[in-house]
């Protein structure tokens, strides 16, 4: 059986215009400065922001282990949406491929709401988009949702 399952939703309002916020997700120099857990440092950042383009981010853990986030872009809509596959290498959790979808919504001219949805999916349809899914982890989402 094939499922797509949301595991995490993270929402945040930024007090900056949408175009500017969007740009911070695709500019390697910026991504290097904000991506990943606080205690990690970021090494190389390779971003090819076009459908099918690669994304590789090197993360250095506090123990100096090197962990990569790798994937490829499945959808980019300027100032609105970015989606890419997401795997940890070399020894990520046994999840198969996951998908990260980020939506950008202009609250007004100077405020942008960003919603990040991290999904486990089994198949990609020919358009490269994750299949639709329902349900998910209602309780966990409520528990973990960032207000």
């Amino acid at each position, binding site marked *: 059986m094939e499922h797509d399952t949301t595991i995490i939703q*993270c929402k945040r309002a*930024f007090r900056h215009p949408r175009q500017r*916020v969007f740009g911070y997700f695709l500019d390697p120099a910026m991504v290097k400065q*904000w991506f*990943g857990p606080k205690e990690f440092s970021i090494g190389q950042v390779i971003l090819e922001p076009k459908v099918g383009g690669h994304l590789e981010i090197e993360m250095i853990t506090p123990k100096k282990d090197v962990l990569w986030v790798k994937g490829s872009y499945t959808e980019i809509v300027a100032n609105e949406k970015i989606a890419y596959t997401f795997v940890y290498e070399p020894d990520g*959790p*046994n999840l*198969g491929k996951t998908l990260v979808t980020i939506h950008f919504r202009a609250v007004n001219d100077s405020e942008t709401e960003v919603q990040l949805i*991290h999904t486990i999916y089994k198949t990609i349809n020919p358009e490269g988009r994750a299949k639709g899914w329902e349900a998910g982890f209602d309780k966990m989402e409520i528990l*973990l949702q960032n207000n």
Partner: protein
Amino acid sequence: MATDPLDTIFSALADPTRRRILEKLKSRDYTIMELSALFDMSLPAVSKHLKILDQANLLKKEKEGKYTVCRYNPKTFGKAIKWIDKQYQFWNDGFDSLEKLMDQNK
């Protein structure tokens, strides 16, 4: 030894009926017959769900006399929650840093 890779756990949990079954099993053990009646499902239908939960190691099936009893396995569920928590922290930390960075660069 049973393995419980996260993708198997998440796939098993993706179905609302299976989540409801697990919810029930958290309070006490149930036989397959009881679950079938409780969820108004045929025995084969409920057995199919239980098989998937069993494969994900989210429950244990044990023979007690002529009945099969299903028992919730909190350890596996905890593993999934722990991973979600960690991954959530990953994005939340990133958003914190992004917010600071954008404010600095204003």
